[in-house]
Each structure stands twice: as C-alpha cells, then as structure tokens.
C-alpha cells in the first residue's frame, strides 16, 4: 500500500469530494468520528470464547475412535489376575515376630530367641543391620572377605572396595558430620 500520509498534509475541499474517503482523511476529519460497534460482551453472549489459540489438545475429546487393522479382536492387554491375599506367605505374614515375648525366655531347656534370628530370607550379613550404605558395605566386606569373595567375584570385589573408598572420601571431606546438628 502506498502511504498517503504525505498527502494528508494537503488541504482537501469538503465539497466535490468522492464518496470513498482516502486513508489520509481517515487520520483526522472533523466531520466524522469513529463509533464502537463491536463489543466483547456480544461475542461472549453468543457462546464460549475460545482460549489458548493455537493449542492442540492431545487428549481424546470425542469423535471416532482409532480403528485397528483387525476388527474382530480386541487390543492386546495382559489378563488381570487379582493377587491372592490368602496364599501361605500373605496369610502367615508376621508369624514369629514376637518370639522374644511369647516364646521361651530363660528356661533351662530352651534358649530365648530374637526375631533377627528368624530372618531366613535376608543375607546373613544383613540380618538385624541398621545403617547407611557405607556401614552396610563395610559389614559386607568383613563377612565376604573370609569366604574368598575376591577370588570368586573379582570385579564385584573391586567395585565394593572402590565404592567404600569413594564413600569414605565423600562422607568425610564433602559432608558434615551427623553430630554437627547437635552441636
């Protein structure tokens, strides 16, 4: 569009002018003024105004579902098998946890037992152990060393020792002692 701004500065007579008002006169003309005829309220009254223009909704909003190549079969889905709440393991869970209370105490024929002695499914070096990774690894090394772990699992033995060294350095040089918060 050719700018007619330069022409606006020229005076135009009011009479004898064509019905099409030039762009230049549209800038300022005392004979007419702009009137608002479009209101946002009318648009809203017609219906919901769309938001997020340009946004593509990824969720299914309605319409035809996708069709598969095989119309007779359902889509493959694993068969749901509800868990058996009353299989032996679940039904008797927690049995013998109170053996030190309800079991024999200092009787002559039987020794008192502690629940940590009944943790058969936990590795022997981990029974009754409470600690962070560093403490657990040190204990594991102590137990496993005697059984010739270095000969049977050389890579794992090396990884174990490396991890212990790294954790020692990290915990002692990079982190504050756990007793600091009490100080």
């Amino acid at each position: 569009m050719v700018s007619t701004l330069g022409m606006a500065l020229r005076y135009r007579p009011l009479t004898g002018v064509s019905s099409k008002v030039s762009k230049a006169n549209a800038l300022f003309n005392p004979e007419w003024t702009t009137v608002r005829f479009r209101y946002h309220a009318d648009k809203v009254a017609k219906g919901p105004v769309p938001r997020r223009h340009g946004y593509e909704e990824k969720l299914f909003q309605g319409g035809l579902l996708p069709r598969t190549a095989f119309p007779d079969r359902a889509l493959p889905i694993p068969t749901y098998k509800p868990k058996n709440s009353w299989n032996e393991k679940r039904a008797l869970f927690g049995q013998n946890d109170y053996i030190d209370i309800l079991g024999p105490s200092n009787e002559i024929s039987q020794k008192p037992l502690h629940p940590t002695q009944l943790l058969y499914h936990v590795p022997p070096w981990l029974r009754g152990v409470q600690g962070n990774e560093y403490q657990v690894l040190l204990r594991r090394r102590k137990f496993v060393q005697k059984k010739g772990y270095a000969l049977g699992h050389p890579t794992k033995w090396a990884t174990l020792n490396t991890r212990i060294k790294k954790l020692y350095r990290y915990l002692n040089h990079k982190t504050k002692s756990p007793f600091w918060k009490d100080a």
Partner: protein
Amino acid sequence: MATKIINKTVTELSLRITRCFFVPSKAIQTNAALFQERSETSITNVEEQLLPTIRPPLPIIYSRKLAFPPKFKAVRQAWVSNMDTVEEEKLGLIDLHPEVFAERPRVDIIHENVRWQQLYRHVSYANTKVRYEVRGGGRKPRPQKGSGRSRHGSIRSPIWRGGGIVHGPRSPTPYFYMLSFNARLNGLRSTLSAKLAQDDLHIVDSLDIPTDDPSYLEKLVEERGWGPAVLFVDDNDIMPLNITAASDVHGHYNLMPVYGLNVHSMLKHHTLVLTLAAVERIEERLLFHLNRNDAAEAGRKHRLDSL
C-alpha cells in the same frame, strides 16, 4: 500329603526346638474324670453320621486361677465353647486377666507394631549404577577446545543420557529397626483387648474336630458368625490332623502356635480363636514380662551380633 499338611503348620523353629510348654492341668479346674474317651482317628466319609458327643453335665470348666491377681481392674469373663459340633455349646465360663485382655486399646501403638512388622524385615534390592560403574566412559569424548561443542570428560557422566545416577538407590538397603520391647508388649495387649472388646475373640477347649472335611469347618464358622477369616491359636505347634487337613484347603483359616502370634495376623484375620491352653500360655508370658524384676535387661536395645 501328610508331610505337606504338616509343613503348613510346623515352622522351621518347631523342628529345632522341642514342645514349647506343658500346660499345668491344675490351673484349670475341670471334671476331667467325667469325660468320655473319644477315638482319635478321623472319619473321612462325610456321609457317615458323626458320633454323638456325650458330655457330662455342664458347666465343665468353671474356674481358673489367675496369676498376679489384678488389684485395680475388674476381672473379665469369657465363654468357653466346643469344636465338636457345628452348633456352639458353651462348656463354661472362665476369668481373663484384665492386664492382658482389658487393656485400653492404643491405636497408635497398634499402628506402630504393624508398621514395624512390615518394615523391619524389608530389604530393598533396587540398584542404580554410579558413573564409574556404568560400562565405558573412560575416554574424553572430544578435545577440550576447538570443536565448538560443549566440553565433557566422560560419556557416562550423570548429565549424559545412559550415564550414571548420582544419588539413586543402592542395593541392598535394609529398613531394619527394632521397636522397643514394651511397645511390642503393649501392642499385643492392645490388640488382644480390642479383639475381646469387639467380640472377635473366642475361646475353645481344644482344636479337635470330628472330621477332616473342610465343609465341617465352613459350616461351623458360618453357624457361629465367626467372620470370613479365622485364626486358630493353640499352645502346641503340632496341631491335630483333622483341623490341619480341613483348614489346608482354605487360605483364610489358619493355625498358629502361641509363639507365632503377632499383631499383624490378629488384625488380618477377622476372628481369633484361642484354646484354653493358648489363653493360659499367653497370659503367663505377658504377665511374666509385665511383672519381671529384670525388665531393664529385657528392654535393652538389641545389639548386633550379640546373639
């Protein structure tokens, strides 16, 4: 089949240790001489009529001596039923010690106990590799300067895809901790009290049933309104054959010795059925621990490798 049944109820523990205890018969007053002797063999044919149980005049069990007589709490009483017939026959009324069966149930302590039981044996085997454990990544991918790309020292650094995980789970992580002795003791007391107060605790003379047919047990439980899941507790860990066979079919009827009793099982099963012998043993054990004079030793923190 016999070994399979036995393995269900006899734990490894029972194979190592001998019978847990012997119930002193003097504690329970019974008209034992008047009992008619019944044969121990099971009747497998259901169509055969069950032998009618001839009983001496009721009540058979009418008194029980309580150890550490309660001073400040009223004694509780409970019926003693039978297991011989489907219909319930009350054989007598016995006293229960209030310190064991009438302790105000502490829900927070019960919750602590259940949480402890679930967690203390849990070991997490989840594991992630650290940067120096992931295969590869020893060489510098490209020279420090000149390529115009970012600088890196290893392709297995944590910022790389496929690289090591920095603070991920490290196997095995134990979640072991020991709840204090008294918290566990009070957990047992609270749960037993709650069970009695809510009518979920029943006492029977013994677990001898006439047949090993599972339907007998079903009918019995249905007739008496004993909840879908029932936990039968006896003092001995080797249970009578009939009830072992009958409950083997159903996972929700379980047999347990007294030393196996625990808060989780008591809450999991709707109804708790104790034999007289089991009641004696439970009371004896709990009252012993409540009244012992070396309680500090028992309540001491468990030290690793001390056993």
